[in-house]
């Protein structure tokens, strides 16, 4: 059966990017095309999600080659919901970029590269072929490297070099793992691998291969001990770029980990213990890092690392409830982290700095905007009915059932530290009286026209609304993650859909 529909979120971004290249220097046209393109992709993603939800897994064999031989694209509930969330974040970033990114950057191809990056993300979520996944990762790295260096300030280049070096290393591990996997089984199709890997007699070789994948994806998703590239590169680019990076790029590593370790390598005790240890250390180092940082974006970067641990821990527990918790957290995290970096960008427009010592008095000056931001921060902490609360319940439940008390303790510490740093940030940035000092730059936000102001605030409100929905409509999200988790525990429908046999 032919389902070209599922490739639409990838193709639409590709067309948008090519169209943008024709308007190389015309920045106004670029802004309009970019927003329109992201909007079309969002519609396509919503369509894809409803189709997958109603009719089950969609499969497309690229170039019409039969399944284990050609490249397969698969959309199950997991990948289509990731595409949907990416499209929400993509639209928000497109809108924010239209007002928040300097003209000079747009003239050097900011928007085309942004859409190539989003195309890479959607492609990575939809592919059903492990080597093709690698290729999409390369598309993502190349685009993100350009976005990171665009502008060419010294700090940016420093961050970019660290980012590039570690990501190349991660790709090398990933590629080596693929090579070993192909050597063992002779196939690259994920569904085919899922059938052949359990039959391999040499289990140690399979474990070694699995560790290569953990290393590769672990570096990409900033897991302890190789997380340090993230805080040292994410504070350098423009906020719109940092939002895409913080919200989506690390999550693609998480997605790949979940996909590979639920479909191809079913974690044995050794891998589970390893994942849990990594999770605990990631949560602790991330939260300790967040405590000492006084720059908003650096603090958020460490919070990303901290919260990555929650998801890895959920994967390490490997029960249906734990996976539900981890997936719920993943969905919540993608939206909220994108939004946090957009908020940081907005504060920078208003005050010209992100240093908490120099900030202050935002609540007095912008009370309504501050309340909007407060919703986002409360969701991040996980105040009960908001979105950060529900996944932790599931994670605790799964932790108690399997007796992983250390992980539970780490999650509690991580949550407390998040609460602490966020409330301290609230007090410093919003409540504290602004330090009197003549050198403070003027408020660029205040001088903007109503159009630009709307472009900056709308995406934040839009993502805050989605966060609210994730929290208050937790029932629906739970239904989605429950279905994904059951699909992960029983992969036969996936394999049958791809290979067309049982």
């Amino acid at each position: 059966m032919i389902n070209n529909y599922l490739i639409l979120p990838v193709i639409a971004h590709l067309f948008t990017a090519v169209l943008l290249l024709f308007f190389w220097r015309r920045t106004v046209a670029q802004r309009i095309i970019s927003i329109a393109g992201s909007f079309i992709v969002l519609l396509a993603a919503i369509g894809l999600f409803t189709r997958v939800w109603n009719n089950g897994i969609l499969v497309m064999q690229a170039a019409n080659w039969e399944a284990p031989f050609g490249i397969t694209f698969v959309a199950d509930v997991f990948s289509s919901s990731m595409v949907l969330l990416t499209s929400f974040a993509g639209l928000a970033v497109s809108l924010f970029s239209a007002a928040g990114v300097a003209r000079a950057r747009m003239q050097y191809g900011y928007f085309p590269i942004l859409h190539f990056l989003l195309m890479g993300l959607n492609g990575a979520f939809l592919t059903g072929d492990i080597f093709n996944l690698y290729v999409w990762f390369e598309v993502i790295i190349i685009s993100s490297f350009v976005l990171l260096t665009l502008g060419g300030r010294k700090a940016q280049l420093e961050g970019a070099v660290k980012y590039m070096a570690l990501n190349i290393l991660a790709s090398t591990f990933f590629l080596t793992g693929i090579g070993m996997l192909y050597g063992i089984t002779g196939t690259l199709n994920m569904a085919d691998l899922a059938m052949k890997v359990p039959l391999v007699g040499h289990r140690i070789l399979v474990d070694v291969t699995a560790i290569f994948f953990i290393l590769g994806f672990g570096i990409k998703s900033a897991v302890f001990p190789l997380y340090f590239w993230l805080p040292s590169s994410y504070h350098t680019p423009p906020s719109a770029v940092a939002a895409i990076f913080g919200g989506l790029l690390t999550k693609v590593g998480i997605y790949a980990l979940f996909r590979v370790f639920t479909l191809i390598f079913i974690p044995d005790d050794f891998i589970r213990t390893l994942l849990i240890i990594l999770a605990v250390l990631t949560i602790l180092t991330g939260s300790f890092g967040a405590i000492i940082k006084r720059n908003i974006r650096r603090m958020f970067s460490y919070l990303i690392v901290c919260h990555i641990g929650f998801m890895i821990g959920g994967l390490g527990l490997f029960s249906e409830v734990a996976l539900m918790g981890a997936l719920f957290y993943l969905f919540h995290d993608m939206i909220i982290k994108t939004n946090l970096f957009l908020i940081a960008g907005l504060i920078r427009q208003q005050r010209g700095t992100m240093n908490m010592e120099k900030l202050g008095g935002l609540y007095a000056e912008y009370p309504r905007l501050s309340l909007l931001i407060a919703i986002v921060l409360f969701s991040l902490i996980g105040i009960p009915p908001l979105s950060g609360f529900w996944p932790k319940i599931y994670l605790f439940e799964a932790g108690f059932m399997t007796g992983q008390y250390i992980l539970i303790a780490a999650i509690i510490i991580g949550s407390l530290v998040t609460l602490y740093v966020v409330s301290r940030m609230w007090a410093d940035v919003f409540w504290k009286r602004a330090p009197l000092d003549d050198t403070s730059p003027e408020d660029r936000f205040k001088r903007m026209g109503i159009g630009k102001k709307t472009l900056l605030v709308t995406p934040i409100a839009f993502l805050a609304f989605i966060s609210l929905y994730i929290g208050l409509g937790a029932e629906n999200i739970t239904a989605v993650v429950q279905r994904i988790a059951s699909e992960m525990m029983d992969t036969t429908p996936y394999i049958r859909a791809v290979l067309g046999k049982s």
Partner: protein
Amino acid sequence: MKSTILKTATSYLLPILLLFSVFILLRGHYHPGGGFVGGLIASIAFVLHGFTYGTENTLKLMRYHPAVLIPAGLALATLSMFAPVLLGLPVMTGLWIDEPIPVIGMVGSALFFDLGVYLVVIGVVLTILFTITQYNE
């Protein structure tokens, strides 16, 4: 560079190299070659011309800036990739005409994809090289 031998040779080599790049492009489907290699050979022809007569003259010879070729080539490749969808086939399926055309051979959507790659490679290579040369001048 002021060398009569180079100047004379270049004026003969430019068309020959361009013709050769098209030959490499066309044989690429079943034999070694294809859009990428063909594009590199074509850009070598222009680089050689620029080397001899100066980058300004090469740009004048090309009429359009090579950067224009990048979106054009990408658009061609994307469209040929997307064309099968209109016939209800999966993306990137090869579409072929029934009878081979003399000289060129079998024509299909893969050829247009390769042609797109050819244009993108020429555009990228020349844009990079010319930018570096003009920066130095």
